[in-house]
Structure formats: C-alpha cells, structure tokens
C-alpha cells in the first residue's frame, strides 16, 4: 500500500503549495493531516494551493482532510487543484463552512435553587403517581375479583410459573444459607454460656416473623419486579402499550392485574417455603453443636405460636402487592430507547426495596402498638 505523503514548497507567486501524494485513506493520513494543518496555520496570509495531482486513491477520510484544509479560517484563500474528477465529485458534495451548524439546543442552565425545587417537584410528582397507580391497580384488582371471567387466567398461570415456581431454587438456597449462617454466628458465642439451645428460638422466631417473608420479598423485587418492569417497558418501547390503549383495552387491567394476582398468589407460598427451609438450615447447623433435630423442632414449637406465624405471613401479601405493582408501574413509565428499559428495571428494584423497608417498618409499629 502506497503511503500518503506531503511535500511543501513555495510557489513563484509567493503562495504555498502543499503537494499530496499516495493513498489518502484513514490508515495513512493522520500524520499528513497534522503536517498540512500546521503548514496552513503557519501561512495565514499566503494563498495556498493543495496539489492533488499525485494522489493515487482518496476515500472519505482523504476527502475529509481536503475539507478540513478548505474550511480553516484564514486571510488568504486555499484551493485544491489537479484532483481527479471522481474525487472532485466527492469533495463537491460538502460545503466546508457549513458542517458545524448544529440545531442542538443548549441545555438550559438554571440556578441551584430552581434545580432543588424542580427535583423536589419531580419526587413529589412521582409519589403522587405511585399513589394514583396503587389506587388504579387496586380498582382493577377489585373489578377483576368481582368478574373473575375477565381475568386472563392463562397469563396468570404463566406469570405464576415464572415468578413462583421458577424462583423456588434461589429462594431455597438463600433461605437455607441464611438459617445456616445465622445459627452458626449466634451459636458460637451462646455456646460460651451453655445457651446454644436458644439458637433454635432465635432461628424459629426470626425466620417466621421477619426473615422468611423479607428475604422472599427482596428476591421478588430483584427477580420478578425487574422482570415485570423490563417486559412492560419493552412493550412500551415497541408501542404495544399504545396499541392496547387505542384498541380500548386498559393496560393496567390487561397487563398489571395478571402480574399482581400471580405475585399475590405465589409470594406467600414462597415465604412459607423460605421459613421452613431457613429453619432447616438452622437445624442443620445445630446438629454440629450436638443438638438433635427433634430437640430443635421441640424448642421451635415451644416458642413460635400461630400469631407469630401470621404476623410474618400477612406481610408477604402486602410485599407482593407493592413489589409487583411498582414493577409494572416502572414498566409503564418507560421512556424511549433501549437504555430506558434498563432504567425502568433499575428503578423497579430500587423502589421495590425502599417499599419493603417502609412496609416492614409500618408493620413493626402496628405490631408494637397491638402487642403482637
């Protein structure tokens, strides 16, 4: 491949001649380009002739070099001579002085106080949207329960499988490990006081009242909440939501109800499972501390009563409602473009986790007041 080259010499009329030669393509011209520009800038008041007689080949990058030379702000003119007609046709496609006229609006610069106000407005607006959506979803759910035949049960079944049955392995694994680690970490110090038997109480109460449903909810938010947001977000990007709306079908009823019903049906079952498997993990650890399985079960039976179980289990229904609802809402709020779907999934998970903490806090206060 012939390299590109630049020869600079003075013209008899006092001007400067830049003689280009060889192949002017992206691979060969970076150095030539820099040299030519620097020569041009060093002779602002002298007329410059770019002689392309010895150019063997010139692609878009070579043409860009010529355009760049022609568009430099100068006192004396620059002209390109002896360029082969086929390359001249390519060069003539461009107006060197009209390549920078962007229509892009400058992002408005606002005072800091205005930015704070706008952000606060956005946050409050988002809260309002969430509350409105919760009302809308609840109304759609109530209507669906009154008219069960309007529910697309096939879709409910599919979501149940994806959000419920398919989540069983990860829920089991995390709960088992949680029980195992919790038991081990508490048994070691308690053994010093000969109180390791009370680890069973800790695991039983902890898993049933709090951790079983909490871990399931966190997994639901990360797994199904994000999936709902991504699915519905992709439908938004593909204009499927617009199609539903123009058909006269309510997207909330059509898409959200099925997912919320499935989540509310599946999450309590997963929570139950998580409680049991978590306790199993704890019992497994206690075996190594010399406490037999029967003793462990007996101890748990003694400390955990039905109200403890219900106190934990009831929360899982509310978690399911909130997480599935927020996942669907974030999906429906998706903007345009591929990154918008990712943003929606992220916001679904973050909002879901915040809601879990809030709801758990509210329940804690209620249980404290009711002395449950």
């Amino acid at each position, binding site marked *: 491949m012939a390299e590109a080259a630049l020869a600079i010499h003075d013209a008899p009329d006092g001007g400067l001649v830049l003689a280009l030669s060889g192949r002017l*393509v*992206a*691979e060969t*011209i*970076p150095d030539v*380009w*820099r040299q030519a520009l620097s020569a041009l800038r060093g002779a602002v008041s002298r007329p410059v002739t770019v002689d392309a007689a010895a150019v063997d080949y010139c*692609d*878009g*990058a070579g*043409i*860009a*070099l010529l*355009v*760049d030379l022609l568009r430099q702000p100068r006192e004396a003119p620059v002209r390109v001579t002896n360029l082969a007609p*086929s*390359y001249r*046709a*390519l060069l003539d*496609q*461009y107006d060197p002085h*009209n*390549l*920078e*006229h*962007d*229509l*892009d609006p400058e992002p408005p610069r606002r005072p800091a106080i205005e930015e704070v106000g706008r952000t606060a407005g956005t946050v409050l607006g988002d809260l309002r949207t969430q509350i409105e959506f919760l009302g809308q979803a609840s109304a759609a759910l109530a209507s669906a329960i009154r008219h069960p035949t309007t529910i697309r049960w096939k879709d409910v079944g599919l979501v149940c499988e994806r959000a419920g049955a398919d989540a069983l392995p990860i829920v089991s694994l995390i709960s088992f490990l949680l029980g195992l680690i919790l038991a081990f970490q508490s048994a070691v110090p308690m053994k010093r006081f000969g109180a390791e038997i009370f680890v069973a109480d800790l695991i039983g109460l902890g898993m049933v009242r709090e951790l079983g449903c909490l871990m399931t909810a966190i997994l639901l938010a990360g797994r199904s909440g994000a999936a709902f947001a991504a699915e519905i977000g992709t439908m938004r990007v593909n204009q499927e939501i617009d199609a539903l709306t123009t058909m006269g079908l309510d997207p909330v009823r059509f898409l959200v109800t099925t997912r919320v019903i499935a989540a509310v049906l599946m999450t309590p079952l997963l929570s139950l499972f998580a409680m049991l498997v978590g306790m199993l993990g704890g019992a497994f650890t206690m075996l190594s501390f010399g406490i037999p399985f029967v003793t462990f079960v007996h101890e748990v039976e003694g400390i955990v009563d039905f109200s403890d179980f219900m106190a934990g289990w009831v929360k899982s229904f509310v978690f399911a409602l909130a997480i599935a609802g927020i996942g669907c809402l974030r999906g429906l709020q998706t*903007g*345009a*473009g*591929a*990154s*918008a779907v990712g943003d929606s999934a992220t916001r679904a998970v973050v909002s879901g986790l915040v809601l879990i903490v809030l709801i758990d806090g509210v329940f804690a206060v209620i249980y404290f007041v009711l002395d449950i």
Partner: protein
Amino acid sequence: MAEPGETIIRVEGLTAGYDGNVILKNINFEVKRGEVFVILGGSGCGKSTLLKHMIGLYDVQAGHVYIDGDDIVGTEGPAREKILRKFGVMYQSGALFGSMTLLENVRLPMEAFTQLDLEQMDLLARMKLSLVGLVQFTGHLPNEISGGMQKRAAIARAMALDPAILFLDEPSAGLDPITSAELDAVIRRLAENLGVTFVIVTHELASIYSIADRVIMLDKRVKGIIAEGDPRRLRDESTDPYVHQFFHREAEVAPAAA
C-alpha cells in the same frame, strides 16, 4: 483487493434458515466490485435472511460466502475480523446505540479502528452525517429524531470507515420521496466515484430503477432465486408471472371458478 468489474462477493450453494428450517436452498450468485446489487422479493421470501447469512451474523446450513476472496463461513478470530472490516451494514431498524449522540454513533468505528485525532474523526463523522442530510442533528440522541432520520444516521455509521462493500437492509423504507431520492444519489455517487459495492434489500421499485445495476429476485415457493439481471429488462421481458406481477405492482388474481 478486487479491481473494478471483478467479483467481490461470491455466494456458493448457500442453504440458510433458522432452527433447522430451510428458508433458502442452494443459492448461487456473484456481485461485481462497484456494482449496486439489489435483492428483491415478496415479504417472507428470505431477503433479510440471505443478507444476515452473507454478513456472517448467522451460521449457514451449507455453502460458502466469499467476501473479496475470503470465505466468511467457518472463519474465526483475526481472519474473520479482517473480513468484517471490508463491509459496513445498515440494519432495517437502524440499530443506533441509544445512549450515544449521532456524532458519537458514527465516530465509534473510527475510534476503534483508526489513528485519527478526535477533531479529525469529528469532522469525518460530520461529513458522513451531512451526506445523509443530518449535519444539523449531530448532538441529538437517536430517540430524539424520527425513524427515517435514524435510518439515515445508520447509513452514515455504516459508511464510517469507507468500507469496500455496504450492505443496506431496506434503506428507503420509511423515508419521504425526496430524502429517498437524495439517498439514491448518494449511493450512485459512492458506487461510481469510489467503487463502493452495494448489496441492498429493498421493495422500492422507483429506487431500484434509479440505482440498481443488477437484481436477484427470491421466491419463497422455490426457496431460491427466480430471476436475475437488469431490473428494467426483467420488468419488460420476463415471462415469469410472479416477476411480471412484482414489477407491475399487480395483486394476485384468484383463478376464476370453472
């Protein structure tokens, strides 16, 4: 590198499809350097499938695709990358990167594969965008412009490295007649002045007559090529009823009841 008029793409015995289904069977044709070559056919006949297999996006079931002498089928590693550098592709949907401005989209291949300065790349990217009438939108994100504009920006990105071959999947669909005609002119200029070879999938008859040197027509009933040649000659001289129907925009007439 192939000289003007020499074969730059050769498709030999290509059988292609998805998941074991055969959509195209034993396809053979050649594309000459500097030629504007158009793949035609009704919906679902496998035009885009052929294109995707020619550019190595999917594995072929049988056959070979030689790009400038190198077989893309079964070639991996640096040898494959060398083949990929020889062509640019514009996808049907545009496939611009949503998080990047138009300028950044067009500049991306230059950043990866050239030693040019940022300013030089910016100028080159602006020139590519000006070719498709988008120089005023360089700072826009893809979702801030219309679908037709996205398509034009995608063509600019495909041309970023001045490849010897450009594959365009439905470039005119969704464009207004004026922009479509301007795009046709750009294609002709690049083919005639730089010897760029174009392989274009399109339905636009007006566009085909103004740009195509040669066309092949696919038909799903035979899963292959039913016509090949100059589009005007095919329109005026072909005796195949489907080809006639296609070029004369006639609806299929159901046979009259006996």
